[in-house]
């Protein structure tokens, strides 16, 4: 239904019926205690983290069963996971990670630097075809210096490696159990895998030997596949599930009136925008692009598209990020747009065909809002909604004008470089934009670990994009989960991840 890193579909999910205690009975004796039941819209594809593409149950199961070297917190800052600390050489071409000393896999084997090296070599293996391979292209060598130390050698200076190692695909695997990875995965995480019934449910149980003392708090987790969100919400209301993952904006309002349930909401990294092909008429004229950008009133467009459950943004850098420049969010400037169009010789109006991938109501509402605004300056927009697979195969990157959406990336470099640098892969697919100053800013930012300097460079980047960008990134979608009031310590993270390790249930 969608490609990797696409925004997970927001319209469907489900829930578990009557007590999960009954569901679990006879399967695990250990499951007698507290059970956290989570409804998700779709099951996992592969259980092999290297193959993850879509998110949802895949990444959330993996975050329970495995650990990465590093992880990202709610402000998208790098935090230790299996690696307790890391340092770079002065030229940023050699990175050393130090492992937590007392980590064991669920089968009792000790987790060492060799497992990390194995995991990363596997991610780099062309035959495995992991999406991480592209992110690791800067890594020329990985070696175990000693059982607790790993060294990455890079082919160029790269400041964001510790964020790259937080990738969901880079879950550290146990080499000895590779052959059962897709049937019974073994990791180091807070929960152990018990069973997965495809299309139905996954059962996880507490890992009593977890290296972080005091967690997890619940005895087991049931991840239940529920494709239809009405079903999931009904199950939450009747108390047969505790959490509904990724609630669509349409459902958030409905639940806000229910006192037994609360909604945990955070701005995600998933961005929605208007894409112009910068080498096709009329968008080869920067004035036309600027006029289109001026038509977009970000806050009202966001409200229309997401019913108030989105957050306006300037670029793919999400509003939760410290580098985000809130001051650059401005309303529409219709007279300004008119003037620019007149200067470009299009004062008499023009006709545009806008293509939209189907199955995304927020995107359709965004396009409709744009169409209605564009009328004011004489632009007639015809909307064409295409089925997703057709859109991604035949239209994206080939049509002049479309609405599109992408899911979040862990670092500003990964969020921006491919989309805005003149050599970037997505830039050369979508908008064909070339701005030497932007190129220079992006190159400079990826070569420094100085956050103040990075903030300055990415700040300047957002200034340019806000006025003279290749297209218009309008908002990021909020990632919302509905949770029962008895669920405590539940956190949602911008990359659509639930942190369940310290979640507890009140009796």
């Amino acid at each position: 239904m969608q490609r990797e890193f696409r925004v997970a579909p927001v319209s469907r999910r489900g829930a578990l019926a009557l007590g999960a205690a009954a569901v679990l009975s006879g399967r695990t004796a250990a499951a007698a205690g507290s059970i956290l039941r989570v409804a998700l819209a779709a099951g996992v594809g592969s259980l092999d983290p290297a193959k993850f593409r879509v998110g949802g149950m895949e990444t959330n199961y993996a975050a329970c069963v495995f650990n990465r070297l590093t992880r990202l917190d709610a402000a998208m800052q790098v935090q230790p996971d299996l690696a307790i600390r890391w340092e770079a050489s002065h030229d940023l071409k050699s990175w050393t990670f130090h492992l937590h000393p007392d980590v064991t896999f669920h089968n009792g084997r000790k987790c060492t630097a060799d497992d990390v090296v194995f995991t990363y070599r596997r991610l780099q293996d062309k035959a495995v075809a992991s999406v991480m391979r592209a992110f690791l292209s800067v890594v020329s060598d990985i070696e175990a210096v000693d059982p607790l130390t790993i060294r990455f050698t890079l082919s160029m200076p790269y400041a964001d490696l510790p964020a790259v190692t937080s990738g969901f695909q880079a879950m550290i695997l146990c080499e000895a159990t590779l052959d059962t990875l897709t049937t019974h995965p073994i990791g180091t995480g807070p929960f152990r895998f018990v069973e997965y019934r495809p299309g139905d449910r996954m059962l996880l149980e507490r890992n009593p030997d977890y290296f972080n003392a005091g967690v997890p708090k619940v005895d087991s987790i049931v991840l239940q596949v529920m494709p239809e969100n009405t079903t999931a919400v009904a199950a939450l209301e009747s108390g047969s599930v505790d959490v509904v993952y990724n609630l669509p904006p349409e459902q958030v309002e409905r639940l806000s009136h229910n006192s037994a349930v609360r909604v945990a909401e955070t701005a995600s990294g998933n961005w929605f925008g208007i894409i112009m092909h910068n080498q096709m008429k009329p968008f080869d004229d920067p004035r036309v692009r600027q006029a289109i950008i001026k038509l977009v009133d970000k806050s009202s467009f966001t409200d229309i598209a997401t019913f108030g459950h989105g957050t306006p943004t300037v670029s793919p850098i999400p509003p939760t990020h410290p580098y985000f420049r809130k001051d650059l969010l401005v309303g529409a400037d219709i007279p300004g747009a008119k003037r620019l169009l007149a200067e470009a010789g299009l004062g008499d109006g023009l006709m545009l065909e806008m293509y939209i991938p189907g199955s995304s109501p927020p995107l359709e509402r965004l396009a409709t809002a744009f169409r209605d605004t564009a009328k004011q300056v004489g632009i007639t927009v015809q909307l064409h909604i295409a089925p997703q697979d057709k859109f991604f195969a035949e239209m994206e990157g080939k049509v002049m004008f479309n609405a599109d959406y992408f899911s979040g990336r862990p670092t500003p470099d990964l969020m921006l470089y491919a989309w805005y640098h003149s050599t970037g892969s997505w830039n050369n697919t979508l908008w064909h934009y070339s701005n030497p100053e932007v190129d220079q800013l992006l190159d400079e930012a990826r070569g420094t670990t100085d956050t103040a300097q990075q903030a300055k460079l990415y700040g300047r980047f957002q200034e340019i994009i806000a006025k003279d960008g290749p297209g218009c990134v309008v908002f990021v979608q909020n990632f919302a989960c509905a949770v029962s009031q008895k669920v405590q310590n539940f956190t949602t993270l911008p990359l659509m991840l639930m942190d369940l390790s310290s979640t507890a249930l009140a009796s």
Partner: protein
Amino acid sequence: MALYAFKRSAAVLLILTVMSVLVFLATHALPANTAALILGQYSTPETQAALEHKLGLDLPLPVQYWRWAAGILFHGDLGQSLVMERPIAPILWDALGKSAILSVAAMAVVATLGLAMGVVAAVWRGRWPDHVASVFAYLGISVPEFYWGLVLILVFGSTFRLLPTSGAASLSDGIAQFVAHLVLPVITLTLTLLAHVARLTRSSMIEVLDSTYVKVARARGLPERVVIMRHALRNALLPSITVLAQDFGFLIGGIVAVETVFAYPGLGRMLIFSLERQDLPMMQAAILVLTAVYCVANLGADLLYGVFNPRIRYGGAVD
């Protein structure tokens, strides 16, 4: 009868063979490139070609078909799921079993209720039981099943919290749980299927009740109950049996919406999953099994019809 059964079975085999070719070709005609889809947006033509080679997608179609069909025929091997990287067969049988439980339960209700409603409507033709039955039947068939499903979830799940609204329980969870999980999906399926059987039974009952032999039976002074149950219904049942068998085929294919709404982990859901993820081998296996179920249900109908109706059994010829 044996010849008749043989002929019908041979026809089913032929249909299945043709269907397997069609299923194979149809899944290969899908718009997106499978390798590109599996590898995602960072793939290169080079990695795509490597994967296509690994999966055998670069071979000529007839060769690919033969490999697939031979695997099923000679080894009972439905292949490996591309996405899940595990064998398809256990997943498929599990899902088929779940769907079968739901379908059989729904069929039992549809048959009992549908025949009863048909008979009642025919006997009290033009009076209130007939009107009630027909309103009920038309309401059921006119409203799509996903809508009934949502209404039932909101009423029984959210408002009254009487019944589980999602998932399936196995027998090891206890008989009460097992049945409770089936109630709402079965009601939903029943609502959509009832009209077919009820209306058909009604019209054939009316036809039979007006026939000479029923009049004769009445003239002989037999009690009305005996006339209806023994003389009329037995003959009126024939078309209903065919329709029920066809409905069974329809049910196991058309169960997708109900399984989705009630998060019931059956074959329909598995098919959707494989379509969404472009999991070719799983898609092919699921569609083929659905086809087979449909064919076998129809074969069952034909044979049953033969058992009940000698004219068909003997094909008009001397046996």
